[in-house]
């Protein structure tokens, strides 16, 4: 039998070799020496100290999760049949154009404050904006599609939309791709809510909820908002 290559050594460490290979390993000094070196290295990182959790940890997690669970059973939360990815193409194309124009318009502007100060102001503004957006998204996710309309959220979405556009343009101008991407995604949701009619169909709301879900938008908004604030404070 041929000597062990690196791939086979790794398989041997995890006990995934056949009987013939195992016998070779036992009888071949060269392969065994190689194997022992690998084993020593992998064993050294095996003890991975994870902070301990109490036996009641599962219950603690449940207590935290429960208030955020949607009231309706999960099996009813299906994507509407008419919804297809290509329905988003026109909106995406429009966003690309808007982003391009915004970049062109803001490219040449200079201000009297330092780049660091500008970045700090932007980060704090993004953090604050994402905090308020998070509240709105949370309400949307928990809104009953049969409740009939988004009157409670529409005005706030309009306010946030204006702010969101400015922040997105600034993020593009500052070269902060991650924030610009997130604000793009957020803007699509805000736009839909801001333009919703007083009798928004339950399908529309389900689409918005689905989009928030599919993109993990609420989670990203929360993480990015916290990061932005923290980074802004450090600057």
């Amino acid at each position, binding site marked *: 039998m041929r000597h062990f290559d690196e791939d086979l050594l790794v398989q041997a460490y995890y006990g995934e070799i056949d009987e013939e290979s195992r016998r070779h390993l036992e009888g071949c000094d060269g392969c065994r020496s190689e194997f022992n070196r690998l084993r020593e290295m992998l064993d050294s990182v095996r003890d991975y100290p994870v902070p301990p959790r109490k036996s009641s940890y599962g219950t603690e997690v449940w207590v935290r999760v429960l208030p955020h669970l949607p009231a309706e059973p999960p099996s009813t939360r299906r994507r509407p049949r008419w919804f297809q990815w290509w329905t988003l193409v026109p909106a995406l194309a429009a966003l690309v154009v808007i982003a391009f124009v915004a970049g062109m318009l803001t490219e040449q502007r200079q201000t009297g404050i330092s780049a660091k100060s500008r970045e700090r102001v932007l980060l704090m503004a993004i953090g604050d904006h994402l905090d308020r957006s998070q509240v709105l998204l949370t309400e949307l996710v928990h809104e009953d599609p049969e409740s009939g309309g988004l009157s409670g959220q529409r005005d706030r979405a309009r306010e946030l939309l204006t702010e969101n556009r400015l922040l997105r343009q600034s993020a593009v101008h500052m070269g902060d*791709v991650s924030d610009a991407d997130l604000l793009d995604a957020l803007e699509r949701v805000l736009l839909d809510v801001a333009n919703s009619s007083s009798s928004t169909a339950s399908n529309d709301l389900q689409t918005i909820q689905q989009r928030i879900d599919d993109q993990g938008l609420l989670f990203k908004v929360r993480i990015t908002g916290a990061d932005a604030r923290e980074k802004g404070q450090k600057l």
Partner: protein
Amino acid sequence: MEWTDSAAADEARRGNQQAFRVLVERHSHSIFRLAFRMTGNEHDAEDLVQETFLRAYKQLHQFDGRSGFNTWLYRICANCSIDLIRARKRRNEQQTFTGDSLTVHWLDRVAAPGPSPERLMQSSQITGRVEEALKRLTDTERMAFILRHYEGCDIEQIASALGVEANAAKHSVFRAVQKLRRALEPAWGVAAR
């Protein structure tokens, strides 16, 4: 009667929140371990645990029982972790692998079997190299390595959790080990002399 994961998932799909509670209580520890090992940060890991179960509940209709429920949860947790890590990377903060006071770097706590001076010296000599090696792992490689090395998942489970073919999962584990080895063995040789 105790529910199996599959039966509890079926019940939860029908709106029985107590059934979902069973699943949360059963799998919280393993999801926390995975999340912590991916992020190296306790606070982030707690966020990921919560987000994983929330997404799981909303996506319960997609759980078809072909893989184990825990494997399915690993996949959701992996996606959440990668979202978070990429957001951090894009910000160049790399909080996961810095010496931030809130971030206890797990590599600083890689425990040797005993506190012998030789082992401690060896450990300190290779810590920097391990850190560099892990930074070089892709998110997929890191997840595959954690699932294989610490959670004891087999290749099929890793493939399912990562949403890739078995060969790709196997290759990710191999690449992770290879990178760690390349980085660690020179230091190991020096320390062993």
